[in-house]
Every structure is written in structure tokens, then in C-alpha cells.
């Protein structure tokens, strides 16, 4: 007669394998979703291409997102602003016609927010522009994106790391962002 836990372990092996495979499946599913269906790259109502505007034509970010300089909110340009150029430029493109339709009907375009912070985070664009930050540091190389995607996690860790690196005065005080 003898005793050992090994036989039991053998018996339990299939259970362990099922659990293991299930766990691996969980990881695969999680990352597959994140990789193939990222909520971070929404399809906009009008396929505006930053590659064309900010990349090819090198229009500065603040030309359209002009509020970022003086307001906590960067804002998106009004249809009016689009038409400022597109009354003359590329007027026969179907996308531009769509924009023009909005303009004529006085209908706003419901852009989908890509970089969406929780409501309890108060991020002032103007302060960051004033500090000389490039838009790309948080928003990624938008000028290369046909469809804007959220590159950075925009989570607290990212804010903190930057605030620490830049030695922002009292930059890690919670009240800086949360109020």
C-alpha cells in the first residue's frame, strides 16, 4: 500500500485542461475584440480625413480646433468653417456635397467623440496648449489617420506620467483634474 496525490492529479487533468483552455479563450476573445473591433476608431457620419487636411495640406490643428487655445474644450469646427474652404475647394466630392447639404439645411453634423474622458475628469485644453504641448502627444499622429483612432489610453496613469515628467507644479494634486 502506498499513498500519493499524483493519481488524483491525473484524474483531475481534464478538468484542469478545460479550465486552462477556457482561460486562454478568454484572453484571446478579449484581445481579439480589442484588436479587431476597437471602439476607439468610430466611423464618423462624414468620413473626414485628417490625412488629407492635417497631413497632405498641413493645416495646423488649431486652425480648425481653434478653441483649444483659449477654452478648456477644444471644440470641433462648425459646418460654417468647413464651408469656408469648401465653398471653393473640391465642391464636387460627394463628401463635400454632404457637408454642403448640412450647411444649407442648417443641420449640425453629429461627430462621434473619439477622445472621451469620463465626466469627472476636467481636462483644460487651453492650459496644455499654453504649456506648449503638441496635440499629437495625447491624440497620436492624427495627421496620418484617415479615420481618427484613440491611440493613447487617456487614462489617469498617462496624465500622471506626463505631469511628473514635465514637473508640473502640483501637477499630481487630485484637484488638478477632479473637482
Amino acid at each position, binding site marked *: 500500500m502506498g499513498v500519493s496525490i499524483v493519481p488524483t492529479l491525473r484524474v483531475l487533468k481534464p478538468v484542469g485542461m478545460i479550465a486552462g483552455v477556457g482561460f486562454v479563450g478568454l484572453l484571446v*476573445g478579449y484581445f481579439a475584440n480589442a484588436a479587431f473591433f476597437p471602439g476607439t476608431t468610430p466611423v464618423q457620419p462624414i468620413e473626414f480625413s485628417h490625412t488629407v487636411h492635417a497631413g497632405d495640406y498641413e493645416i495646423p490643428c488649431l486652425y480648425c480646433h481653434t478653441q483649444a487655445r483659449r477654452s478648456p474644450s477644444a471644440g*470641433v469646427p462648425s459646418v460654417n468653417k468647413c464651408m469656408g474652404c469648401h465653398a471653393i475647394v473640391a465642391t464636387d466630392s460627394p463628401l463635400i456635397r454632404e457637408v454642403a447639404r448640412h450647411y444649407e439645411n442648417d443641420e449640425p453634423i453629429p461627430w462621434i467623440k473619439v477622445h472621451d474622458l469620463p465626466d469627472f475628469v476636467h481636462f483644460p485644453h487651453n492650459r496644455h496648449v499654453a504649456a506648449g504641448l503638441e496635440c499629437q502627444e495625447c491624440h497620436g499622429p492624427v495627421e496620418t489617420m484617415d479615420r481618427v483612432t484613440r491611440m493613447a489610453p487617456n487614462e489617469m496613469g498617462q496624465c500622471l506620467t506626463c505631469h511628473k515628467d514635465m514637473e508640473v507644479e502640483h501637477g499630481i494634486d487630485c484637484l488638478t483634474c477632479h473637482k
Partner: protein
Amino acid sequence: MPNVDRRNFLKLVGAGGVGAGAGFMLSESRKHPVEHLVPYPVPPEEFSPGIATWYNSVCSMCSAGCGISVRTREGRAKKIEGNPAHPVSQGRLCALGQSGLQALYNPDRITGPLVRAGRRGEIEFDPTTWEESFAELANQLELMRTAGRGGGVALLTGGVRGHLASLLELFMGWLGSDQLLHYDFNHPATLYAANERFFGESNLPYYDIENSRYVLSFGADFIGHWLSPVHHGLGFGRSRQARDGDRGRFVQIEPRMSLTGAAADEWIAANPGTEGVLALGIARRIVDQGGYQGTDLDAWQAALDGYAPDAVAEQTGVLPDTVARLADSFAETQPGLAIGGGAPANHSNGVDALVAVNALNHLVGNIGVEGGVIFNPPPAFGPEASRHASLARMLELAEDARAGRIELLIVSNTNPVFNLPEASGFAEALADIPQIVSLSSFLDETTAHADLVLPSNTYLESWGDDTPSPGVGFRVGAVSQPVVEPLYDTRATGDIVLELAHRMGLDLAFPWPNMEEYLKYSWREVWSNGTPDPSIPDFDTFWTSVVRAGVWGDETRAPGGEFVPDAGVVEGIGVGAPEFAGAEGEFPYALHPYLSNGLHDGRGANLPWMQELPDALTGVVYGTWIELNPETADELGLSDGDVVAIESPAGAIEAPVLVYPAIMPGVVAMPIGQGHEEYGRYAEEHGVNPINVLAAETEPATGALAWAATRVRLVPTGGRADLVRVSGEARELGREIVQIADAGTPAAAVNAPAVAAAGAGAPGVRLASGARAAAGIDAPTAGAEAATANTRLNSIPITVVNT
């Protein structure tokens, strides 16, 4: 993988599948919900999301006429603060004024024109269009006008001033009707009458509390809601602690301690209605002690003959020593100020009592001097004669209605069905009026009787102007501008009237397309009458700067001239015994109704902030109670929460008892403001309306409702109702939470001037974000057409005066 049989293989595949699915869902659930960024198709010029724009305007929550600054973000009003440039509010604002936002954003606002669908008073309305309503109403008005029956139109409004009042006057004039009535429960009609009698001037004077060193107040709750509470508050604070080593003293005389009484250094309860007698007792003592040396001394002595200390003491219940002490210190401490209002002013002898108070000011030489009573100049614009309706006048209107003389009643911004005693029969009289049109923003008790509802904008969506009364001792005018676009399909009252006039074919008489144009037109006159200022070359500049500043006027008070009362007036001075409705034997307690701090006369009841604002003295929210002296409560065997029936000769209501330590034993007090049957979700089904048990007793000289002149009896019902209150134990138990210094302690005045300046000049964030506010100079709101942001222009035509 060794020895994986088919079964196990399937299990593994299943496990993998379930795991992957779970992982997928997990990842999905962590994604942000979609949010949209919706920009303007064409943004208003210089509109900046994320940056606040401030607009100056005028508060319309009560009749004080405080200047306000409204903070807006993305076209929505966010906060109301006092306009620092406005001499009445000087950047400050009371609770009710701040909750004006909830009038604007009230969920129970009427969102468009309504026409009655069911029977009167059943509150069944169908939506209709402005076009239809205007067409019909204008047609009816025009028919009546041309048929000479214009007199059958009655227009009943709240306390309106400025050019809207002029416009209504003009409109009614064209209709040929003199039934233009302003009804405001809190209107100090007796004070106007007393001033008319004593000063020969039917106007409110300026009470310079700030510079006064001794304030003797006969029932005037001037910090709570009397005349201009914010301005009085400023004066009170500064009289207390802003003068180095010279703390103003303040005595309040009233049967039930009000908010103001609680702030007083000394609170004295005189028998209800005998405050005037006390004033004359004090006057006599002053005269006796040689405090008055005028040429008409003899006349005074004669007039005050009947007010010997003992007689006064017997009538008022105030000890002769106290009377003497008050008189001596009042005479000694100059400048002093005697003011009267509240219950004594609204008693059967109200005018006499207020004349007596005026007399006190005269005897110690406080008329026209700093720290005393200062006369206001006539208002810069607006109708000359007051159209304020007394109870008697309202009864007349009701009588006219019953006699069929009123064919059409237009009600705007007033709620007489709620604010008039049931005994007046006003609500019943409405049934005899064939057509009732309400211009109210809310479905209140009066609007419930309407056949047609043409909802007006709130004041935050309308153009208007105002001349504050009692003002500040010099000319002030203020323009109120819309700070947001109208939320609903509603119109400004002025615009409705103008539209009606146009549709009636009165274009020539009313050439202005809208209220804004009418204001501009009218203010041209104000501008041309004003002192020329080289920095303001034309009217447009003037108008822009006035709208931006929100206020216009003089800077200094005119020196007061010598004042001598008419001999006849002196001769006629005297205060009779108060008369009550209800015999003392049958109705042992004098009912002392008072305006609630937050709900005012009931108009604040639909504002949730005001409903949840704990009563300043009892901490009760959402309810009505009856205050009893502990002694009275003991006699009746009542304690907090016991429900009693309050029965007067005119009616009965039920309310829970609240034992209140600072009320005379023979008096019971109830707050006005609750007991709405209509008026929206926040107002309905809370408390009772004590106005309903008031007898339709009038003050003989003015016909005003003597609301302090009803006696009641209390009948315990055996029921209990727990009062909702935020306070726990109301005694300190020796814990020294509120610590007391004796009078010898130096004032905090070291820096008071600095504080005062900061208070006047630095409202909240505005200065702090001055640069950015400046960027918003020309930012018209998402709202009104040419509304102009508040900015600190160098040429604001008025500066605050701290004389």
C-alpha cells in the same frame, strides 16, 4: 496533446469558445459609450464652448429690482449673481433671486399657447398656436374697442415697473379701459399712503441703514423680504461692523421674531397692532425730554398727549421703562432710523402707525440726512401714477365681474386666486367673466381658470427695464436683457401686447416691432434727458454700454432739504386701537401670517431650491406650520407635530404645531407660501395657505388688505403630522458653538472697507477670468438678438456709491 479523446476534445473546444465569448463581451463592456460632438452649423460670433459669458439683467423674483449678472455656458444659464455695478444689489443676491434659474428651467412651465378644453377650472387644455390665439384675441379686442366696450377689458398684472408698465398703460388707454390693476400681495400700499400723508410724497424714501447708528424697526422684516432685502442686508452688515468702533444698534419690535428680529440686538414684542402706539409713546418721551426743539413743539405735545408711558404700556404690553429706554437711546444715538412695515403696517391702523414711525424720524431730525430717511427722486421713466390695487380695488373688480361689466380679463404674472383671501370671493367672481386670458409662464391657481393661456417668457428670456423702488436715494434705471433664447414656444409679455396691438390695427400708436425696439425707442429719451457724457457720443454707444452694465443712473444722492410736516398732519397724529376680525372671547389668538423667506408670497413654491431651503428660523422644509409660544402650547396641551384646526371668522385650515420660543403668548404665526393646489409638481400638495382664513378686513385709509387683523381659535384635531425639518436640537447645551463677544470688543472694521470694495468690485470668478471674459465682449448669446456680454467698460455710466 496526449490522449485527448473525442469527448474531451469537444469539451475543450466548448471551454475555449465560452472563454473567448466571455472575453469578447468583457472587452466590449469596457468600451466607452458613444458620445457625440455636435457643433453649431453656423456658430454665433465668437461663441466659445467651455467659456462662460456673463450677461447683466434685472431680477424679477420680487419687487426690489436687484441688478443681476447671469453666467451662461453654451447658451444655457448656469448661475445668477448680483450685478456688482448695480447700486441696489452691489453684487449680492438673496436666495429667491438666485433660484430664478429654476423658474427658467422649471419642468412645469407652459410650453406653448393653450386653449381651454374642459370646463373652467378643470385644467383641461388643448395646445393651440400663437397665430390662432392672436387672431382670435385681437379680433375680440378690436371688436370691443370699436364698439366702445373697451372698458370691459381688465388687465391684472403683478408689480410691473418701467416701460412694460408704460406699454400696458398705453395699450389699455387705447382700449379705453381703466381696469389696469397691479396686484402684489406684498405691496406696501400703507407705506405709500403714510408717506403721502406725512411727507406729502407718495413714494418710498430710501432708508439709509448703512450709515445709521440706531435702527428702530417696527415690524419691518427688512432682511427677509421687506422692500429690498439684499440692499438692506448690505446696509445692515456695514452698519454692524464696517465702521471702526461704532457698531450700529438695532431694535426690532414685533410680536413674532422674524429673521430680522433674530438679527436685532434687542427684540421687543408689543401687542399686535399696537406698534404705532408704542412709536408714539417713544415720540412723547422724546418730546418730553426735550429731544425735539422744532417750532411746532406745542402741536406735537398736544398731539402726543394721550401717549403717556402708562397708557402706552397698558396698550402695548411694553414696560414704561423700556419705552423710556428706547426713546432715550434713539434720541441720543444719531443718526438713527425708525422704519415700519410688516404686520403693524398691514393692520387696521396701518397708515396711522406708519405715520407715527415717520414722526419719530422727524422728531429726532433724521429726515433727509445721511443715516436717516432720504427722499428718492422721481423714477427716471415709467408711469407716474401707481396702479397698485388694494383689496378694496380688487373687490371692486370682482363686483364689476359679477355685474357683467368685465368681458375679458387678462392676467399676467400675478396669482390673485392664491393671494387673496377666500373671503374676498374673488375666485368665484372669475366665473362671471366670459373670457379670461392668462399670460403666465406657469399653470397657477389663477391660470387654471383661464380660457386661453398665452405663456410668457420668464424674465431671463425677455427684454425689459426697471426703476428699483425704494431705490437708493438717487436715480437708477436698469435694463434687463434676455440671457438665453426662449426655451419653449413662449413670448415676452411686452411682445404679446405689441403683437395684439398690431393685429388690432394700432400700428401707428405702437410703431415698435417688438419690446426691444420699444425699449430702445424709449431709452432715447432717457439718454437725451441725461447728463451729456463726452465719452458716449451717440445713442447706440449709450445703449450698448447700458445693456452691458445692466444699469444706468446718477452717482450721488441729492442733499435733503429742510422738512417740516404740515401742521394738520401733526395735529392728526394718533394711532387707534387695532381692530380685529373675530371677537377676542371666541377667537383668542391673533393670527400673524408672514411671508416665507424663500417662497415669498407663494411665488417661490414651484422652485425646488426654495422648497428645500430650510426655513431660516425653524429649519422646516416643504410645509406649513403654526407657531405657538411654549406657554400657549402648554395651555392647549400641544406639542410639535400635533395638528390643529385654525378657525377664523372667515374659514378654517389645519396645520401642525411648531412650538416657537420667540412669539407672544397671545399670537400664533403662520408662514405664507405653501398650500398651492396648482403651480407645478414642486408646489402642489405641500402645506396650507393661511391667506385663506384671513378675513377680508381692510385698512380704512387705503383699502389694503389688513392681513394681520384676523383672530383665530385653535382646535386640536388629534392628528399628527411630522414636520420635515433639517434641524435637530435647537439648543446649544453649553457647547459654545456660537460664541458671544461683549459690546466692548472692537469691530472687525480694520479691513471692512477693503472687504466692501472687494464685495462691490470683485464678483466671484469674473475678475479672475477677466482676460477671457473680455474675449467674450461681443459674444452675443446663443439667445437674444443683440445681447451683450458684461464687461467692465471704463465708461459704465454709474459707479457704486458708498456715501
